[in-house]
């Protein structure tokens, strides 16, 4: 051992930081909480005022609520919404849980491939997929006509409440799949092995061990899917409106846009009510998650997984899952693809006689072109900003002594539970009330970007938090002991270790912002269009071909970006699973 005169060296004591860590932490906390909760304050205010916020004067009143509650259409919309959300939840949870059990606990054919492909419906642009469904299965859709005119077979009408919920369920099934899959991966499969060695048949094991084990995950994903279905706007708007089936979200949207005299107070009151329901559901879910955490700690570490043999059912069940993928993803996307290169899509004339590039050419002009450029711009900038903010906010939430840190995890998950439409209304009022900055935001694409960022920020959080939790706290303590303050420790030690998760969060944020649309419906103005709003408004006006082409652009960019993060695809997707499965 070399001996060195240790005490000859006198080093300076680490200096006090110029900016105390608490100031930065407080700033980040305020920014996050302000951005998420702030916009609902003007909305609440608008709902109890007798005239719009942009008009001077005015008194506080509950008239809007009274008016809303006395409107039969509003209550019918609630009945429809609850029926729709319940059906969606039942189908998606049953399907997702079954798929998760098949993929992670049995010798299903092609199970590895399915494990990944099954996530596609939730990763692809929701609005594009809905348009694809309509083009193919809708009233007058290609396959609908083909079946009824050529084969004289009726198909399921998708413009009914059960039909719409089937589409929504096929989109949200991966949420249940991921939650259950995560729970199964955590649970010790030796419990199942033990039941089998005790003589139970595979079916019996499933009924008596596996499904009870999954109960917390089922409840948890059911609440989330129910919340997401209540919040859904695209399907109700595109499929329900024509048949005059209104849901709460589409009722509020149409109240605002179609009414001869829009009544902001009533819409805000309805939005408050929807927000209240979503909040209660989120609180409920948090309680369920608490139960799940207790459960998991009992279950212990994941063991080796022995597969239940399906025997003769190996392939038929695989075919069933393949069929789901064909219906939920392949047919809508193919429908869009074909639609985008033909003049019209009809079973009467073979598509190859009707080929045209005109739809795609239109994308290079006018609103379509602007929408694409705007969307790419806000996705890139928004993903960078949101990822950076969430990264730091996650550190404040879990790796600081900031007194109010405990509120952050709940707040950061909150936008996930709030319907995009409501986020949009909130930001609309906020921009109106914040003078210069507000009117600049209102007049540019950055106002839309901000709303999209806030709406999708939970994705970044749920990707980063599990990774952060795996970075031992002694690593940052060692940094502090070495003399580095909170921010220096975060910058030099924790954030570099979090880098893979930050990158995944960025990829996911980019895709989510690119595909989002409903918060922008109240914010969009000519010149500020984004892909989603343009698709929706043009489609409603009857422009189908170019909209299909636009949807294909969105699908294409999504697939390429997710593919670029291919190494992280698994990562990102397993973390969306965490959206369903794991909060702070």
């Amino acid at each position: 051992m070399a001996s060195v005169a240790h005490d000859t060296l006198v080093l300076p004591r680490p200096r006090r930081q110029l900016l105390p860590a608490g100031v930065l932490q407080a700033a980040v906390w305020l920014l996050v909480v302000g951005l998420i909760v702030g916009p609902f304050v003007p909305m609440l205010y608008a709902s109890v005022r007798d005239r719009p916020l942009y008009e001077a004067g005015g008194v506080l009143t509950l008239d809007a609520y009274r008016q809303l509650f006395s409107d039969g259409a509003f209550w019918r919309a609630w009945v429809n919404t609850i029926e729709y959300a319940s059906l969606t939840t039942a189908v998606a949870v049953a399907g997702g849980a079954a798929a998760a059990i098949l993929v992670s606990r049995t010798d299903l054919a092609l199970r590895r491939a399915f494990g990944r492909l099954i996530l596609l419906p939730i990763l692809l642009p929701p609005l594009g997929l809905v348009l694809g469904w309509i083009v193919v299965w809708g009233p007058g859709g290609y396959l609908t006509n083909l079946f009824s005119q050529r084969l004289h077979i009726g198909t399921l009408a998708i413009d009914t409440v059960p039909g719409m919920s089937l589409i929504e369920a096929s989109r949200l099934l991966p949420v249940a799949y991921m939650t259950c899959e995560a729970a199964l991966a955590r649970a010790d499969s030796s419990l199942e092995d033990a039941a089998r060695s005790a003589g139970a048949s595979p079916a019996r094991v499933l009924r008596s061990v596996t499904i009870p084990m999954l109960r917390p995950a089922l409840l948890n994903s059911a609440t989330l899917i129910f919340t997401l279905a209540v919040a859904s706007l695209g399907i109700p708007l595109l499929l329900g409106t024509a048949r005059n089936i209104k849901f709460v979200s589409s009722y509020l949207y149409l109240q605002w846009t179609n009414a001869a005299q829009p009544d902001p107070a009533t819409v805000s009151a309805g939005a408050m009510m929807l927000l209240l329901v979503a909040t209660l559901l989120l609180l409920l879910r948090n309680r369920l998650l608490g139960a799940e955490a207790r459960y998991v700690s009992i279950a212990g570490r994941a063991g080796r997984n022995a597969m239940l043999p399906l025997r003769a059912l190996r392939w038929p069940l695989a075919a069933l899952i393949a069929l789901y993928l064909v219906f939920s993803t392949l047919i809508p996307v193919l429908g869009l693809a074909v639609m985008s290169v033909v003049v019209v899509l009809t079973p009467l004339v073979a598509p190859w006689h009707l080929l045209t590039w005109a739809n795609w050419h239109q994308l290079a002009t006018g609103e379509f072109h602007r929408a694409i450029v705007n969307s790419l711009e806000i996705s890139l900038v928004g993903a960078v900003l949101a990822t950076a903010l969430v990264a730091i906010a996650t550190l404040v939430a879990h790796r600081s002594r900031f007194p109010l840190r405990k509120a952050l995890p709940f707040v950061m998950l909150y936008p996930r539970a709030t319907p995009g439409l409501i986020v949009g209304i909130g930001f609309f009022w906020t921009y109106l009330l914040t003078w210069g900055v507000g009117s600049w935001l209102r007049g540019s694409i950055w106002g839309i970007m901000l709303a999209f960022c806030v709406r999708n920020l939970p994705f970044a959080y749920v990707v980063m938090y599990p990774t952060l939790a795996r970075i031992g706290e002694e690593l940052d303590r060692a940094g502090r002991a070495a003399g580095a303050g909170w921010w220096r420790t975060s910058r030099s030690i924790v954030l570099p270790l979090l880098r893979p998760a930050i990158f995944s969060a960025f990829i996911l944020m980019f895709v989510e912002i690119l595909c989002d649309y409903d918060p922008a419906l109240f914010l969009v103005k000519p010149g500020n269009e984004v892909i989603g709003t343009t698709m929706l408004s043009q489609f409603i006006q009857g422009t189908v071909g170019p909209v299909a082409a636009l949807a294909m652009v969105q699908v294409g960019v999504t697939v390429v970006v997710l593919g670029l993060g291919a190494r992280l695809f698994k990562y990102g997707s397993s973390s969306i699973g965490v959206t369903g499965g794991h909060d702070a």
Partner: protein
Amino acid sequence: MPEIDVALLGKTFGEQRALDDVSFTVGDGELFTLLGPSGCGKSTTLMSIAGFQTPDEGRIAVGGEQFFDASRRLNVAAERRNLGIVFQSYAVWPHMTVFDNLAFPLKVRKLSRKDVGTRVREVLELVDLAPYEQRYPHQLSGGQQQRVALGRALVYSPSVLLLDEPFSNLDAKLRERARSWVKDLQHTLGLTTIFVTHDQDEALSMSDRVLVMNGGVVQQVGTPEDVYRRPVNRFVAEFVGRVNLITGMVARYENSTAIVDAGEAVRGLRVHVEHTLLPHASLTVAVRPESLVVEPANAATYNGTNTISARVTSIAFLGDHYQYELDAGGLALTAQSPKQVDSADVKVHIPPDACAVVE
């Protein structure tokens, strides 16, 4: 001047009292050990000194500087305490090379590049890691990682070194070597050190003084000899090595010697006591197995005082000694001796000054 002064620390987690009036002082250059079973509050104490736990009550001062005082709401930030810490997990930063790990504290202190290089190499030399400076932690063995952690804690010449179970992740052979290596290093550098362990051998072999704690309460502070030979209570006696506990009744006193009766077989046992108790008080005496002298029943030595006859129930050969399990008229005793005794009937001598009254 005491280097570290901890006074009346208290900490409650929910219902649980993790620290209860923990007080001790550590002298300059001393190697002071916190010893106790897992969960007794050792890490909580150490992390309170380091600034990563905030006790509910008490005071902490190091080198005359007050770091923590609950009554004055004073709590110096961890990064400004200038203490060297080696964590149980080592906490070597995985994304930095060995060199960068050691350089970080110096960069934080704004040393010039050249000085950083010189100082880091000097310390790498000290911890025998010079050839590994460009390696990443995952390319190092557990023992090497531990030395990186130690080097990183020493590189900025902290006034105090805190070690939280630094050897618990090493295998038995390596642990032996690391112990003497750390002990030498500490001695050479003259560093005031607090060392946390649940391993009594480690505590006894390395420390200048040992603090034994249990359930957040300090049981005894003393030299290794003190806590081993003169445990103040049953917990310390049992936790620090193997022990025979003999419970009996005080028959009478002769000066500072108590005459104790413990059952039929053990009568008139003479035990050294510091303070006298009432006659007929019950008391428990702790005797280490190696203090018992085992002789064949017919041997001429040790007749009379403190000698009882017993039967050997089993003998185990443990390399450097034999271990005897004995039955002295219903009282089970364990004895250790380098000598082999063949007969089944033996005499056991209990030296009066090897007896510690524990309750």
